[in-house]
């Protein structure tokens, strides 16, 4: 069995995440994103690689969307409404609620502002979202008889999830984007320890290790406070969802604490509407924010009001969140044009800005003039503050997750090629896990776990569960006690429980395989047992008997009488016990180590006595028998016995 992973997007790049994974015959599409950097066919994943005949309903069993960012959900309406996929689509409740907002916003920007031909209509978005099945975290969803999926909290944005998928014995996790450290409103990613064949993880910050965010937050608040204290206006261009709410919680708290009265505005209705969603989905935020639901919902911002266009030129300080982010157009650009020329004002750019946007120009250099187009030029005198908050995990977080899950294979997506190569090396060398980072449209094939299923008997299970204790006595001198001059020799009994399951597999034609305990086999196949045993009658020297106090033996026979049998056995036990440790047991009439059985031999002629000729030294004979399992140990014991002298105490 194998798992096949076809990377349609986010292979050695960031954008249009899309991976199609085939597990035991089931095909799942993870994410269906669009690339914001392209305007041609490259913006969508190449769906023709999934099915040449474009029959996507038979080619794909389900689609799983990890979160509402356009590079993860952007191509979904296109795929369902234009390409015609009508199978099940799964996403978390927040993702289902917020994705249409993102998609519609994007569509509007494309059509209304840039005048492009639309790739999907508003109607398409609505129809597409109707097909989506919302799932809760940790809810085990049975997609069909064989395919099971489950969402885990991923941090990153509201409702972001990592998805676990299992078909038969093979299992994998696709992380989407995730964050291993909690932020102002979201918690850290959380997942169970799972048995995985494959982990597909993002690697945006494959080589970066980030410090604490609190310093940067303080810096941001200080900059904003200083600006408004001096009567300036602060423009924060941001997308409606995610960062806007995070910064707003930050500012709202700060305003509360510092008792500031300067108004904070949200530009368009979109963000206000988004706040409504955040309020209802507060249980998807972090613990601290979540607990506020009853008394005062944290997304009920006290100091935030909605912005009116007439306020742009109103005097006095204010803070304004305006969409879209990166000042790529729209309202944020409109406000920027008016506020940029005053040095009292501040523009704070949170997050990453795509090349080509004004945001990018502002952060890359210190331009004093920006050409909007051929005719319009804006002079930039305001302060620029860049805020490098990122809801992605860093390299340490990726390594932690990989180590925690310990999958058999790792595939890296959603990152930059050279950094991915370095992370791959690190995963392979540090964790010993095979790692791949395929390019777009490449397929990676990995073997998957397969379990052979067999019926088993109760005896086998019981024997496997039985503790198999090994007692080892170690005598250790407590050296720390030397001060008290009493060197206490404490004997420590170590108990090992090494359970090993041993059984016999029976395979019969046209029957399910069966595993039984060894003792049950012969009954099953109807045969009689033939016992194969080894025997050896071993002489042990007893030296000069005069030296052995209190023991009166019949010397002439070279053997001992019955009454002394036990004492000889006991002597032998004492000797062997010191050499063999705690495994040997004294049963009075015989000694036993596993299957090895040692007893005093009283016969004149023992058939198992193979030594020739008369004994030079007085000796006691011990008859030893054992079965094949303990051959090596038995011979070891015999060699010890032959070199012993029982009279030396």
């Amino acid at each position, binding site marked *: 069995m194998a798992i096949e992973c076809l990377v349609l997007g986010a292979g050695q790049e960031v954008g249009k995440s899309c991976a199609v994974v085939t597990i035991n015959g089931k095909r799942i599409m993870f994410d269906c994103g669009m690339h914001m950097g392209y305007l041609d066919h490259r913006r969508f994943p190449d769906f023709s690689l999934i099915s040449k005949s474009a029959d996507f309903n038979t080619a794909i069993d389900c689609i799983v969307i990890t979160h509402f960012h356009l590079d993860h959900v952007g191509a979904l309406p296109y795929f369902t409404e234009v390409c015609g996929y009508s199978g099940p689509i799964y996403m978390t409740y927040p993702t289902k609620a917020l994705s249409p907002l993102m998609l519609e916003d994007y569509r509007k920007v494309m059509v209304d502002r840039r005048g492009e031909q639309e790739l999907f209509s508003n109607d398409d978005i609505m129809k597409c979202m109707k097909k989506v099945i919302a799932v809760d975290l940790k809810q085990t969803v049975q997609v069909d008889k064989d395919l099971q999926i489950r969402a885990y909290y991923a941090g990153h944005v509201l409702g972001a999830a990592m998805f676990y998928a299992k078909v038969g014995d093979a299992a994998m996790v696709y992380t989407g984007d995730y964050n291993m450290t909690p932020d102002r409103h979201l918690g850290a990613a959380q997942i169970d320890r799972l048995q995985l064949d494959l982990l597909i993880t993002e690697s945006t910050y494959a080589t970066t290790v980030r410090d604490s965010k609190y310093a940067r937050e303080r810096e941001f608040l200080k900059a904003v406070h200083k600006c408004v204290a001096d009567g300036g206006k602060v423009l924060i261009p941001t997308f409606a969802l995610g960062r806007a709410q995070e910064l707003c919680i930050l500012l709202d708290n700060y305003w509360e604490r510092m008792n500031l009265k300067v108004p904070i505005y949200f530009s368009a209705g979109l963000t206000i509407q988004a706040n409504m969603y955040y309020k209802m989905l507060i249980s998807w935020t972090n613990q601290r924010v979540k607990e506020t639901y009853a008394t005062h919902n944290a997304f009920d911002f006290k100091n935030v009001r909605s912005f009116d266009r007439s306020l742009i030129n109103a005097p006095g300080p204010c803070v304004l969140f305006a969409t879209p982010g990166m000042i790529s157009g729209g309202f944020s650009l409109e406000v920027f044009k008016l506020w940029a020329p005053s040095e009292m004002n501040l523009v704070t750019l949170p997050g990453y800005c795509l090349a080509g946007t004004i945001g990018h120009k502002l952060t890359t250099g210190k331009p004093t003039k920006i050409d909007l187009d051929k005719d319009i030029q804006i002079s930039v005198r305001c302060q620029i503050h860049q805020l490098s908050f990122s809801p992605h995990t860093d390299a340490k977080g990726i390594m932690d997750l990989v180590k925690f899950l310990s999958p058999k294979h790792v595939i890296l997506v959603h990152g930059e090629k050279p950094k991915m190569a370095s992370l791959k090396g690190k995963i392979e060398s540090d964790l010993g896990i095979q790692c791949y980072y395929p390019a777009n449209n490449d397929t990676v094939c990995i073997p998957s776990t397969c379990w*052979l299923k067999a019926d088993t008997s109760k005896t086998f299970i019981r024997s496997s569960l039985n503790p198999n204790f090994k007692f080892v006595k170690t005598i250790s001198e407590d050296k720390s006690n030397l001060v008290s001059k009493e060197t206490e020799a404490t004997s420590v009994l170590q108990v090992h429980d090494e359970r090993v399951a041993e059984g016999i597999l029976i395979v019969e034609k046209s029957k399910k395989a069966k595993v039984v305990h060894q003792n049950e086999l012969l009954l099953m196949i109807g045969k009689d047992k033939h016992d194969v045993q080894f025997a050896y009658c071993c002489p042990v020297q007893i030296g000069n008997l005069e030296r052995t106090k209190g023991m009166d033996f019949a010397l002439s026979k070279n053997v001992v009488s019955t009454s002394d049998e036990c004492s000889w056995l006991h002597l032998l036990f004492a000797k062997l016990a010191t050499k063999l440790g705690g495994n040997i047991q004294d049963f009075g009439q015989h000694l036993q180590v596993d299957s090895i059985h040692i007893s005093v031999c009283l016969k004149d002629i023992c058939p198992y006595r193979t030594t020739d000729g008369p004994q030079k030294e007085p000796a006691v004979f011990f008859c030893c028998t054992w079965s094949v399992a303990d*051959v090596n140990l038995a011979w070891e014991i015999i060699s010890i016995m032959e070199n012993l002298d029982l009279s030396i105490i």
Partner: protein
Amino acid sequence: MAGAGAYGRKSAHSQPNCSKSGLGPGPGPDQPIITCRLLRSLFTPLIQTLRGPILSSSSTSPLIQRRVERPRSTRSLPSVYMKFTCLSKGGNFYFPPCHIITVSGFRILLDCPLDLSSLMIFSPIPTHAFSNPELPSPDSVDQKRQKHERPIDSSELIRAQPWFKTVTSLHLWNVPFIDVVLISSPMGMLGLPFLSRVNGFRAKIYVTEVTARIGQLLMEDLVLMNKEFRQFYGCEESGLPQWMNWEKLESLPSLFREIVLGEDGVELGGWMPLYSADDVKGCMQKVHTLKYAQEVCYNGTLIIKAVSSGLEIGTCNWTINGPKRNIACLSSSIFNSSHAMNFDYHALRGNDLIIYSDLSSPVLEDVKDNSCYSAPTSQKSSTLSADNDQEASAELLLSTSESLEEMEKLNFICSCIIDSVKAGGSVLIPIGRLGIILQLLELISLSLEASSLKVPIFIISSVAEELLAFTNIIPEWLCKQRQEKLFSGEPFFAHTQLIKEKKLHVFPAVHSPNLLKIWQEPCIAFSPHWSLRLGPVVHLLRRWSGDENSLLIMEEGVDADLALLPFKPMAMKVLQCSFLSGIKLQKVQPLLKILQPKFVLFPEDLRQLVSYSDTNSHAFFYYCENETLPVPSLKNSSELEIAADLVSLIHCRRLTAESIGIGRLKGDFSVTHGKHQLHSGSEQADSSQSRPPLLHWGSLDLERLLAVLEKMGIRGSVEQGNSDTDSENARVVHVYEPNKALIEVRENSTIISASNESLSSLIFEAVDGILSGL
């Protein structure tokens, strides 16, 4: 019979299932308070005369007479059998059943409720106007009562700090031996702090997130309401309260005595003073919360999962998957809910055993007409294919007639409310069902608006504010229609808007300062507790009980006679209404048909009411309270999963005669996620080398042995067994080259004795080659 039967089900225009009547000023016996459709069927034992033995001698402890013997440790029982004991059938919506099962050696408690209806034997806190020290003491009344049973007087209510009645039989079990507690609803959780505070309690408690939250709020509310009593009666006396003395108990009216002692007179031990706020806190810390359909693995063996039951927000049915069997615990469930997520019965398919524990039986009275329900599908022509049959069943299950009926009821209640406020009366709603409250709020506000009435709605409860806020942040637990509101960005329930518009006012208590400021009558007030003994409702009911325009809305299944006793004489109108609280009996069979279990544990009480056509393949076991049922398993062997890499290492030996292959298997055994697995262990290295067989069978042919030995350069001679050796038929091979050795061969055994290790192993090789072995 004022208004009785006017809205009977059989009337032509099929009015909803509510009835209303004005309450006469006096408690005359010919003045029935309420006639309702479902005549307290679940409380029949309470209103019948005592049937069980009444303990007359105070020396007889009620705890001696027991029907159940203390269960022995079930760990010693064969694990093939599962054991099931119903500890309590429960009573109504507020008192769900309680069972204990032993499966795979683990003891699982299903729900831990409180019987809060028994609170009604206590008197509510007297107000100054009400409390009259000159009232005859219960003792003097007693003499009269015993002679001729007459209606109980309110003075006979027990005037003491109330105790709470737990499930008595639960106390017979050793608490530290309970491994798992599964809670299916907030009501099933109310007795949990009694259990979790026991020394040695170590069970894992699993509850859905929402049930845990709502349950906690309900418990905290209960503790707070109970505090009022403590303030009134002062600190609790140590030891048993006075009313529990035998003399006092015997002098109680028979109805009260039955509530206190139970039908069989053994339930006195179940009474406890309420837990403290700290107990609740401690209990909540021990709770593990789950989402719907979240799998959790207990001890590597049992996979436990909660799926929605539709009864209330967050309520669930549990499935337990063990290595030997799959169990579904089916509690009261509603197929079509208008607030909570629907009953997810598909998730219960594929279980061998269904524990049917929905005793709500909302249509018991219909039985009179139909005597019993047979499967509707079985009456259809038998030509229907099984598939069609299933579809038909599913259709029947999902028919929305129930929810329409429920909606009709609510609308009817609403119209009564509007009538009352129009007449200048206030309306008091002490119903404790969250779903009903939420829906009534929406409907009432619409009705008020429609009739352009400006009547304020109050909710007075210490936990109302939090509870209402909570319902608007849990879309994942709501029905489809409410979830749609999330996707269109509206609040799930209307109350957020109502609060904003100041149409709805929420206060923690009647004495909240702001409440007095805006209080205005007539008004509509929701307030706990439904037993009419605790909480703000007591004050409001006293205030309005004399007003004939006011209206009290009560639930059926509550003994209204008893509940209203302390408030008599009452002029206030009372509307008693039953709400759907579980699976209707006619749906039982179609449901089981779809679920296809092999065994069904079914309550004996419902046996007569549901008939089964013999086409059903499932076997029924009927259970009664306090009887332990062993349930056999179908599977005798368990399944073992063997890692593929381990299988490849097996040296398989083929048995010549049969087409059987056998091989030794060695690995690390583990039980994870309910599966037995064999992994390639640490000892891989040596198991890859072929080891000598440890087990032999067949017989040893001496001629062949000598020949084989010869080839190895070992020479020996056969000596027939002489009479000296103990066994007659032993034949001995004496080896003389290269060294001395001896092989003693019998029918079923061989002994090899050689002077050194290498010779011994060579001989073994030869023997092994001739015998079959593994």
